[in-house]
């Protein structure tokens, strides 16, 4: 991968100018970054438009720009499940999240675990929700680091560094990606990130719209593009009498991912930073415009196959290291003039940086509020609190770095699907708890969570962390289903049964600091 000087220059200028905007914006606003509510929630001040950019920048990540088209390019129709996923998550946003926003606003909750602590008066359950949030986000941050790594490598920043003690160091792009993210997050907080989300949105739309116009013209229309695709993977395989088949796993991946998405700490941070319920409801029908962009990017995966970038010698090294995850970078390098390729790469790079920063900030919030202050140092000052959050956010990034190195998976999307299995197990405690005044209690939820986590992790291990669709054999029928859904069903079942039993045998007082009006 040799560097094109024009592409490299445009990329570096745009990428670092955008990241620099984050620092500058923070300085301009005289935000007190040693206050967690400011660094971590942007002061709950974002209106419809800024929330649109911020949530869009937060939710549409390297998953969208790298992992989904990679799966479409490599495996065909299956990869398109991301489209129903990112459509179906909006009715969930519309119905569920305003309730969570209201109760959080009323009681000053910053994290989902804060809500669980208040709703059930259980430190143990809050700890479970906080720890799950952090653990599930780490592979998601890893996916962002991988996205940036691929961009840096693709643009030509892939020389080998000869270090005195360690010897030759090949993974410079990954190291650069990590350093950029770490320095950026530490200094900027959520205010700065909101500003660069705007730049990200603009860069992404320009790059995507250009791609879906220019590339089909080069290739002679969409008909030729789909004619070049592998007919075996153009559609999903049909099920048989004894196996529900890929159509079922497709639907389960879409539904499971849609249920998981708003439970992630970075999504909840984005939701809580909005200034009102109406901002969220409006965004439930404004944000799908980003889903449209996602669908177009998924189609770029089909185009990468039609162009045949995989077989071109100049991209062989990229494919050797990153597999199909290199499809979109290779397509951009091949189809765009160098300066526009630089712009498109900057779009992907910033596209990964924004969510990674919010993810790391959210993990910092979770650790500080629900683990450090709750169990280690209850009397710490706000300044210490903010400092711990920043150190913890750095620790999650280091863990993510480890994930990238340890799990160099052929499809980056598996990192996100793995996180989804875990985060889904907090659904009963966070989402069902918004609706069920008395049916659920802490003991039931904790046992359900434990069962879901154990079952989900066990399925992931049995798939060797290389996939997320587990084949369940039930009454002689094979059901290939996203492991998150199977684990969640078990979780919900146990949560209700145990809650019911506990309620019948004991009359311990209900410790719920919220009342019905708080949710409206």
């Amino acid at each position, binding site marked *: 991968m040799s560097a094109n000087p024009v592409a490299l220059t445009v990329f570096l200028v745009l990428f670092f100018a955008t990241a620099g905007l984050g620092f500058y914006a923070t300085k301009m606003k005289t935000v007190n970054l040693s206050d967690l509510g400011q660094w971590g929630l942007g002061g709950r001040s974002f209106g419809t438009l800024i929330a649109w950019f911020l949530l869009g920048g937060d939710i549409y990540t390297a998953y969208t720009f790298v992992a989904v088209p990679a799966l479409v390019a490599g495996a065909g129709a299956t990869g398109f499940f991301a489209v*129903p996923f990112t459509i*179906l998550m909006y009715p969930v946003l519309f119905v569920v999240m305003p309730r969570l926003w209201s109760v959080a606003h009323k009681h000053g909750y910053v994290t989902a675990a804060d809500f669980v602590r208040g709703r059930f008066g259980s430190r143990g359950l809050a700890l479970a929700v906080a720890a799950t949030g952090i653990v599930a986000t780490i592979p998601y941050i890893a996916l962002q680091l991988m996205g940036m790594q691929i961009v840096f490598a693709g643009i030509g920043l892939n020389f080998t560094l000869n270090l005195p003690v360690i010897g030759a160091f090949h993974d410079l792009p990954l190291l650069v990606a990590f350093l950029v993210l770490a320095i950026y997050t530490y200094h900027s907080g959520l205010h700065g990130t909101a500003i660069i989300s705007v730049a990200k949105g603009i860069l992404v739309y320009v790059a995507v719209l250009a791609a879906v116009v220019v590339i089909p013209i080069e290739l002679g*229309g969409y*008909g030729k*593009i*789909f004619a070049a695709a592998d007919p075996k993977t153009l559609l999903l395989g*049909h099920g048989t009498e004894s196996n529900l088949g890929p159509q079922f796993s497709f639907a389960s991946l879409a539904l499971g991912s849609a249920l998981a998405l708003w439970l992630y700490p970075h999504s909840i941070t984005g939701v809580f930073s909005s200034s009102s319920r109406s901002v969220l409801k409006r965004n439930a029908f404004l944000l799908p415009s980003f*889903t449209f962009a996602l669908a177009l990017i998924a*189609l770029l995966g089909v185009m990468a196959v039609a162009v045949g970038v995989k077989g071109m010698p100049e991209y062989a090294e990229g494919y050797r290291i990153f597999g199909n995850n290199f499809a979109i970078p290779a397509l951009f390098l091949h189809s765009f003039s160098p300066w526009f390729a630089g712009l498109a790469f900057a779009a992907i790079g910033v596209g990964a940086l924004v969510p990674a920063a919010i993810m790391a900030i959210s993990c910092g919030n979770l650790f500080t509020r629900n683990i450090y202050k709750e169990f280690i140092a209850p009397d710490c000052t706000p300044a210490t609190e903010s400092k711990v959050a920043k150190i913890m956010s750095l620790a999650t990034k280091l863990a993510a770095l480890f994930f990238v190195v340890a799990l160099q998976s052929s499809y980056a999307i598996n990192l996100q699907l793995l996180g989804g299995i875990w985060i889904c197990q907090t659904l009963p405690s966070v989402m069902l708890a918004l609706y069920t005044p008395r049916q659920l209690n802490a003991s039931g939820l904790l046992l359900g969570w434990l069962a879901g986590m154990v079952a989900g992790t066990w399925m992931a291990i049995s798939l060797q962390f290389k996939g997320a669709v587990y084949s369940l054999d039930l009454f002689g029928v094979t059901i290939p289903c996203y492991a998150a859904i199977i684990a969640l069903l078990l979780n919900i079942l146990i949560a209700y049964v145990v809650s019911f039993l506990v309620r019948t045998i004991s009359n311990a007082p209900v410790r719920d600091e919220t009342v019905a009006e708080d949710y409206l």
Partner: protein
Amino acid sequence: MDEKTKKHGFHPVYLLLIVPFVALLWVPFYNRIEPQIFGIPFFYWYQTVWTFLGTACTIPVYLYEERKGK
């Protein structure tokens, strides 16, 4: 508004929010090539068009809630 609606806060307009789930989770319905548009198989354009139809399902519910001052 009748008594029952007031109590449960349910109005038929909320059923619109279920429509995308039916349309997109019943995969056999759209797992096909024909009819194509501009050479794009049904499977691909159907799901892409739903990014807009999903919005079209949500807006009436939003307007209803705003009018009710919810």
